[in-house]
């Protein structure tokens, strides 16, 4: 009778240990990284591309890119930062390749999973309308402007941090954010007029 070796991973491995193990082809270690960061990646992708059906594929694509990039990851930045860059790139690629704009408002079924469970029905209805209007307006922006605006205005990054994540200069990011703001304000104004 042969004893099976105990699991290789210690109970509380840090990201660095898991990355080192994943680099050697340890899928369990990489799966642990996935479990730790999947929710954050999902939330970010949803904010950027909206509650589209493809976001599960985008999450998988993000982690596959991370896996393929582990050899190049030298720990110069924290893993979440590294992963954030990959997430944004994946989302941006999707927006570029989709080449289609939202022509219909998002249905309630797509928006409901994004809302906190504990809020009451009135607040839910308001939050639904808010998200519907914002995603619709964001859907009219170019992918670059949309991503720059979201990482700065929604995720709260500085222009320097955003520049690092989207791979452009801080000045370029600033221009994109300002242009996106102008367009969004106009779009929301038009929507308001249409409602009236």
């Amino acid at each position, binding site marked *: 009778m042969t*004893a*099976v070796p105990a699991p290789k991973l210690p109970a509380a491995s840090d990201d660095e240990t898991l990355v080192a193990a994943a680099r050697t082809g340890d*899928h369990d270690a990489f799966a642990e990284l996935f479990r730790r960061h*999947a*929710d954050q990646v999902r939330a970010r992708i949803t*904010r950027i591309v909206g509650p589209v059906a493809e976001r599960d594929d985008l999450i998988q694509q993000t982690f596959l890119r991370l896996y393929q990039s582990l050899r190049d990851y030298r720990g110069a930045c924290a893993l979440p930062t590294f992963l954030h860059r990959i997430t944004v790139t994946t989302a941006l690629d999707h927006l570029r390749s989709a080449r289609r704009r939202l022509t219909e408002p998002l249905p309630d079924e797509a928006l409901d999973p994004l809302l906190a469970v504990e809020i009451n029905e009135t607040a839910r209805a308001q*939050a639904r309308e*808010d998200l519907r209007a914002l995603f619709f307006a964001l859907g009219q922006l170019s992918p670059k402007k949309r991503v720059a605006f979201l990482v700065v205005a929604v995720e709260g990054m500085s222009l320097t941090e955003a520049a690092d994540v989207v791979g452009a200069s801080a000045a370029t990011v600033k221009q994109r954010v300002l242009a996106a703001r102008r367009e969004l304000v106009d779009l929301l104004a038009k929507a308001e007029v249409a409602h009236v």
Partner: protein
Amino acid sequence: MSDRREQELDRLCGVLARVDDRHSDLGRSRAEARLRKALRTAVSRRPISALTGASTLAVALATIVIIVRPSPIPDAVAPATALALRPYVVAPTTGGIASFVQGIADGASLDVPDGWLVRASVNDGITVGAVGPARVSVTGTAREPELRVDRGRWLVEVTPNRGIHLRISTPTFAVAVIGTLFSVDASEVAVRHGRVRVSAPGGTTEIDGGFRWRASASTTLEPLDDESAAALDAHAAASSPSAGAVTVAIVGEPAGAEIWQDARRLAVTPASLRLAAGTRLALTAPGRARATIVVPATRTTIAYSLAADDAADVTRLRASRQRPTPSTTPASRPAAAPTPRDLYRDADRALAAGDRDGARAALRSVLSVGGDDTLMDAARLDLANLALESGDRAAARRYLDEVRGDAVAEPAARLRCRVAVASFDRNAADCFAAFRARFPASPHAAEAMAEEAVTRADQNDCARALPLLDNAASLSLPADLRDAVHARLSRCRSSRTSDGQ
């Protein structure tokens, strides 16, 4: 006016910033299974270095009989052709069928008999699966294959970005696919990921992942139902073999044994599986010893016989509610000092007779004699179970902490969560969540989900409990757990209603 609009935009950004679109626990497990599969595909071109030679072909336990011989039974796998349906799983949906069904595949078509599950690859990049009765045939070229669904519901996965343009036809409509996971039968198409285009007499409709289209209501889409989603996820998680795969037929006693690869159940026996040489499989059956086999490099039949009265019967330990039937034939006791196996057998008999003290003493003797790691882990797990039953949580934890190997890792992990519940540990619910993430294909995953749901509800975390309770309420559970789920479900629903008012 402009300032007001700027403020409105900032307010909307705040709403979006608060969006916290987390995976459900089941969703995360499914996503992890898909990712693991993709990782395996990504590295499958590397040589397998872990093989240790023909001696590792079989035999984890001394009492298990594994015979490998040239296949005397008809092989269900079609010969390789330019475009062919090549089954990699052929197995009954429930165990106990004693012989294989012949003529399932002829290369160009698959005919799945009633009650059988077949999964097959179409060259590299497409997999299909169905539970019989079902029939499909393939024509066209490797780049532009066409599947004709004649009967049944087919689960299809197409690896994207391979330049494959798959077309599927049914008697009433046609489906064009680029890269996706979906199911199709004569009346509907259900898409899990990606996008397909359906052409029917009423017009053309594009269906995104998460939606279902019915021929009878061709202009409206419905959300994908849970059953289809689960079936498609299971199909995606059942990896198709790499180019160097071989077919093994696994037959023996008892029929209906489960075949496991890592934490994933592949099929029940008798089964014909197409797998990469060197793949390590485990065979388990209730009340029988576990066996490990390694897929050899050439096509074979592996005949097994799982010993019924083995001391290392870890399966019994996985279901502590079900005590084993006492053996009808008295075990022959050697004249010399009892072996760990003899002692474990004594413990087994004592448990069956309800003699917990006697069982405890025999199990402790197993530990003191030592020498057999798997048996000792099984004894520790039994002792932990008994300790928890008697309310000694500290002892239960101590025994569980001493479990070393992974032969009983799954039941030990679940028992640890039960100890946490009994100890009013705040992390008890997370313990069940971690269990389900670690053992996504565990036969106890449904019970663990229900236990997590009940625990979260008892911790007044109805927000997280409710989706799990809703899910658990639709599952087949032991009566006490089912009652607990329904009680918490009513309580959480009523508390949500009162919060909303």
